[in-house]
């Protein structure tokens, strides 16, 4: 029987939600919460331990978290490592990738995970490990766990496996040498593809070029003391009654709020509606996300010319890149009309 160790977050361990997201790493024997589904689907492999770590702990103290977890794994016998499934939970997905990458390198065992294609962790770590394309939410737990467990069982048993596309994981950009008599020679395939392309017929490339997001670099502000600065945040800071009814997660709406007569944001007048973290600090003092207090000081001192009279707000958790891009397109015209020279974007 081969041995596997799983990594899950505080939520899937049943410890708690956002209020427990600072949970420090710990290791328990056997299966816990989310690792049960993986264990059930494994063939000839058993889960001996489950590592649990809060998403914010991993996000805010990455080096420390990785060091602690590696210390826990030191001396343990295991043949493979699972992290997740992380679905569309961004911080969880990134945490799964961070820890898997280190475990693979340091303990020389393969790591497997599962994430939704909108999870930023998928794009960040797909080249480093096998990440199966998973569902949006925990409703897909069984299917997602099954996919990666079944594949890992076959890999460990030394069975033949197919390409990333055939198996359902995100391509790592690796090319494997195979000899397949049923395939036509490469030159024939290339010419057939070219003919199809010229004839506007569909064809599938054998070497997709990965897309990377590239934003042209903007020129710097020449004179800050004459510049107007706008503040945008994805931390969900809104007036306490949330007049634009911005969603607490997977946001599709945004708002802008007049701050021209304020020296700072006061708790009780503004709060955060972001469902992705413990709101206590930001509700008490919204300036920890939207730093109007210090910017207003700098405006009075003449370091900056002016603060744009509105701040802009939405919620970043679970929000798709497509929706985020659309909201940004909608925010740009009023910011440009106000002759803003530079933007401070605070993301939580």
């Amino acid at each position, binding site marked *: 029987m081969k041995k596997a160790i799983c990594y899950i977050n505080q939520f899937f361990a049943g410890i708690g939600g956002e209020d427990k997201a600072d949970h420090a790493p710990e290791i328990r024997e056997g299966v816990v919460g989310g690792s049960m589904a993986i264990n059930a689907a494994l063939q000839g492999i058993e889960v001996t331990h489950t590592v649990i770590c809060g998403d914010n702990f991993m*996000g805010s103290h990455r080096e420390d978290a990785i060091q602690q977890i590696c210390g826990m794994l030191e001396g343990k016998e295991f043949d493979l490592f699972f992290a997740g499934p992380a679905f569309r939970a961004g911080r969880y997905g990134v945490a799964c990738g961070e820890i898997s990458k280190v475990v693979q390198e340091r303990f020389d065992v393969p790591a497997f995970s599962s994430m939704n294609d909108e999870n930023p962790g998928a794009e960040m770590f797909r080249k480093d490990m096998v990440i199966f394309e998973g569902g949006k939410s925990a409703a897909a737990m069984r299917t997602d766990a099954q996919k990666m467990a079944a594949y890992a069982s076959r890999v460990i048993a030394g069975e033949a496996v197919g390409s990333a596309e055939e198996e359902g994981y995100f391509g790592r950009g690796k090319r494997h040498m195979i000899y397949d008599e049923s395939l036509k020679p490469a030159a024939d395939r290339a010419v057939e593809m070219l003919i199809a392309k010229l004839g506007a017929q569909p064809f599938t490339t054998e070497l997709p070029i990965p897309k990377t997001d590239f934003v042209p670099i903007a020129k710097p502000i020449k004179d800050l003391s004459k510049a107007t600065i706008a503040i945008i945040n994805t931390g969900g800071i809104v007036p306490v009654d949330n007049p634009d009814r911005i969603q607490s997660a997977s946001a599709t709406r945004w708002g802008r709020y007049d701050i021209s007569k304020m020296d700072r944001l006061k708790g009780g007048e503004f709060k955060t509606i972001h469902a992705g973290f413990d709101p206590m600090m930001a509700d008490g003092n919204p*300036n920890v996300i939207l730093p109007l207090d210090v910017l207003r000081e700098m405006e009075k001192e003449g370091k900056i010319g002016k603060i744009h009279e509105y701040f802009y707000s939405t919620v970043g958790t679970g929000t798709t890149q497509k929706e985020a891009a659309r909201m940004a397109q909608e925010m740009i015209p009023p910011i440009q009309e106000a002759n803003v020279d530079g933007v401070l974007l605070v993301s939580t």
Partner: protein
Amino acid sequence: MPVVQLANLVPVAKTTGTNRIVPGFAIPYPLGNPEMTEEQQHQMRRHRIEVCLDALTTPIEEQTVFKVKI
């Protein structure tokens, strides 16, 4: 128009194409710290925002993460 992103998850900011990045302190309070006094937090906030504003005035050739001291 230059944009500076104060981000806790710096690797995510890099993947999504932000060019000027300044690290935040923690996810629930990028510009606060419950273990500090109000005055210390204010200093830390002011310092990080000064780094952000400097980032907006600095010419860069590639994605840059600006360093903070507190």
